[in-house]
């Protein structure tokens, strides 16, 4: 009888909170968007599913051993933890919500040695890390996940169009205004008293404007891990929404004349150029921005494996089995940050609004940069390819092409837009490096 009662009081139905219900609904909606609407499904399916898992009551899949031990708050366990975490506690005392909050705060603020001791205590009482918490610490906490994705993306990237017309790299630079403009936006929101963001949080939110999933996750995990869930969801959702967000801005900032500009055909690119390019980028990173070395190093490594032509089996694995495996775990790990207490917050709303602003600003400055360059150059650039500088590879380049075709059915901009598109990836990785350097990583 007692056992049946245990099953009932330990069931989800008995323990579920309104927040958890809300988050499960949000995650089901993410799955709907991914499956039915084709919103970046490779990431949003694992993220959405991971989010549901993270909100299963009592399962504690996204909690560490210590957090699980605190959650189940047996007096003897709390007593043992209180000694390690230096929280005042008495076995006889009533255990209120505040008591548990005190334990959680102390755990969050504890130094590494204390955390290790607390983990030992929790383990001795039979508590373990939740599955998603383990995935998170291995894949994102160590930063290896986003880096491997970046390596795979590098192995899939063709720098041919960029090499054929290097000045389009500048469009990829201009679009990074989206990132830093959003940081400013977050600061403004804080100044206005509407919301409250620290400079770290502002920077992590700004990186959404980089329109680059792994870069966003990498930066967020370094600067503001507690916002990681919302930032990743915003980044991937807006990347999927690029075909909706960008065209109005592109049309507003250009004349019909400009949109019809036909660009000179790209020159053929030599294989050796393609091999030397990732090495050149790496050397520049080494000389000017060591803090971007992990991200851009792995990216260039992947690209070199692809282009050098002598390690095709490694390149194949980087592009398939390895990136797919990492994607599964990365998505579930991001999902682990969609717990109700972390996501259902005013800040999330701010992140969603600011992320949208970031995309819009980046799109705009990319287009404007193209117009600026046309003032000084005889070889005109169609400003529609400027918007591709935000990255969101290859979606943004496709959007440039589509809007171009709408204005001139003979005007194929796809290849021209691929240049700024991949430059945007490098650009936001550089921006990420600057941020981490500037904010003392």
């Amino acid at each position, binding site marked *: 009888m007692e056992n049946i009662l245990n099953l009932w009081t330990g069931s989800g139905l008995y323990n579920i909170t309104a927040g958890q219900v809300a988050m499960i609904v949000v995650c089901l909606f993410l799955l709907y968007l991914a499956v039915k609407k084709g919103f970046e499904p490779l990431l949003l399916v694992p993220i959405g599913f991971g989010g549901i898992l993270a909100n299963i009551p009592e399962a504690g899949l996204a909690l560490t051993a210590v957090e699980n031990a605190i959650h189940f708050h047996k007096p003897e366990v709390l007593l043992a933890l209180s000694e390690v975490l230096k929280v005042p506690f008495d076995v006889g005392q009533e255990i209120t919500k505040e008591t548990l909050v005190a334990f959680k705060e102390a755990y969050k603020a504890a130094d590494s040695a204390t955390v290790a001791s607390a983990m030992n205590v929790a383990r001795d009482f039979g508590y373990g890390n939740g599955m998603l918490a383990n995935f998170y610490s291995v894949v994102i906490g160590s930063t290896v996940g986003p880096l491997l994705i970046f390596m795979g993306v590098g192995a899939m990237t063709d720098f041919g169009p960029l*090499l054929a017309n*290097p000045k389009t790299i500048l469009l990829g630079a201009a679009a990074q205004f989206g990132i*830093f403009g959003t940081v400013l936006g977050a600061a403004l929101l804080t100044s206005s008293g509407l919301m409250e963001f620290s400079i770290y949080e502002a920077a992590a939110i700004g990186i959404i404007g980089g329109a680059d999933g792994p870069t966003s996750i990498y930066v967020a995990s370094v600067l503001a891990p507690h916002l990681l869930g919302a930032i990743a969801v915003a980044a991937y959702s807006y990347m999927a929404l690029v075909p909706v967000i960008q065209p109005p801005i592109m049309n507003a900032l250009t004349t019909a004349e400009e949109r019809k500009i036909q660009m000179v055909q790209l020159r053929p690119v030599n294989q050796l150029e393609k091999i030397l390019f990732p090495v050149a980028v790496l050397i*520049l990173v080494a000389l000017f921005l060591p803090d971007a070395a992990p991200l851009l190093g792995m990216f260039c490594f992947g690209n070199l494996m692809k282009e050098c032509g002598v390690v095709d089996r490694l390149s194949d694995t980087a592009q398939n089995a390895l990136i797919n495996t990492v994607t599964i775990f990365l998505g579930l790990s991001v999902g682990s940050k969609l717990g109700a207490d972390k996501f259902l917050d005013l800040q999330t709303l701010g992140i969603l609004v600011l992320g949208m602003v970031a995309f819009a600003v980046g799109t705009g400055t990319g287009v404007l940069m193209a117009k600026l360059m046309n003032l000084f150059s005889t070889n005109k650039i169609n400003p529609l390819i400027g918007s591709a500088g935000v990255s969101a590879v290859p979606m943004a380049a496709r959007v440039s092409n589509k809007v171009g075709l709408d204005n001139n059915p003979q005007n194929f901009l796809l290849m021209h837009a691929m240049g700024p598109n991949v*430059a945007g990836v490098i650009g936001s990785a550089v921006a990420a490096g600057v941020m981490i350097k500037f904010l003392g990583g």
Partner: protein
Amino acid sequence: MSDLMSNAVDLMMVGMGFVFVFLVILVFVTTFMSKMVLKYAPAPEPKAPVTTAKPAASDDAQLLAVLSAAVAKYRSDHKK
């Protein structure tokens, strides 16, 4: 201006400045590199890294072709 605001402005100046400096240098380096490549190692060369690597392989291929008759005899196991 709040501390956060000034930090954000600073970050923007430094960040965009650096992004542009870095990518402008990249434009120059890339352009220079491409010129050198096209000057010293034009069209036919590009496939070099692949073709230099291939000989060994094609050497094998030819070798294997020659050998296959001999090998076929002593291989009773159906899968190789």
